[in-house]
């Protein structure tokens, strides 16, 4: 039996909200990173659920691309984080304010 697509959409919305709230609440740059990954994943779930809904593979191709971009984002982001730790000795984003006007 096929489960309704809306269940998956609601779950994805919940996970996305938890991730967004984490970005707003936490000050550890690493945890903010993980929350962003979680939000990307919830959007992937949406795309795959809708790909099944419409019987089209394009949604899954899109998710494949998103996974590659997420991997690139994590590599560069963590490198930036390490470079920042070298200079400022902190991963608290309240103290990373060099570009603040």
């Amino acid at each position, binding site marked *: 039996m096929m489960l309704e697509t809306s269940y998956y959409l609601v779950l994805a919305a919940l996970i996305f909200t938890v991730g967004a709230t984490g970005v707003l609440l936490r000050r550890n740059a690493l945890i903010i990173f993980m929350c962003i990954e979680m939000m990307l994943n919830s959007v992937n779930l949406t795309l795959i659920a809708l790909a099944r809904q419409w019987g089209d593979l394009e949604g899954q191709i899109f998710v494949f691309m998103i996974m590659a971009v997420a991997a*690139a984002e994590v590599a560069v982001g963590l490198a930036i984080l390490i470079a920042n730790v070298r200079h400022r000795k902190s991963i608290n984003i309240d103290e990373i304010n060099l570009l603040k006007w």
Partner: protein
Amino acid sequence: MSWSLLFFLLVGAVSLAAALGVVTSRQPVHSALFLLTNFATLAVLYITLDAQFLAAAQVIVYAGGIVILILFVIMLIGGDTNDFSAAQRAWSRTVGIALGTILLLTVSYSVLARMAGPSEETAALLQGGTPEAVGIALFTKYVLPFELIALLLLVALIGALVLGRQQEGAGEGIPSVKANE
């Protein structure tokens, strides 16, 4: 209640609980392990959605690659900071929770309003999603985006190398972050 619904509710509950664990854990290592749980349950849901190839890719790329990378960085810089310092500003937590609630209400309204309306007939069961079907689509119709992704990954690799490289003359390694320094 059908078995598939029961299964979805169980896996979805674990997934949501893991997501909450990522946000509320005090130790970054615990957050990373909760994140791993979240990714694994999502891979299970992908299988129930007939996306077998992406379920495997999810486990390999996210669980095997990204979480390990995050764990390595946690080990490197010792992220053992109790960082609920956002609560030092009294309004911050309230505003964060309020904005999160608004976002949840908005998103669930758009979904629930759709659910209440007349349901269209759902499309036929997607038979694709196997590695064969996804591979054929990737290497025929979507071969250009596929090559561009390869280029993007190369650029990201070089960028990460340049950013993470040790400065000339500074040979003391990566300093670790002390708790609440």
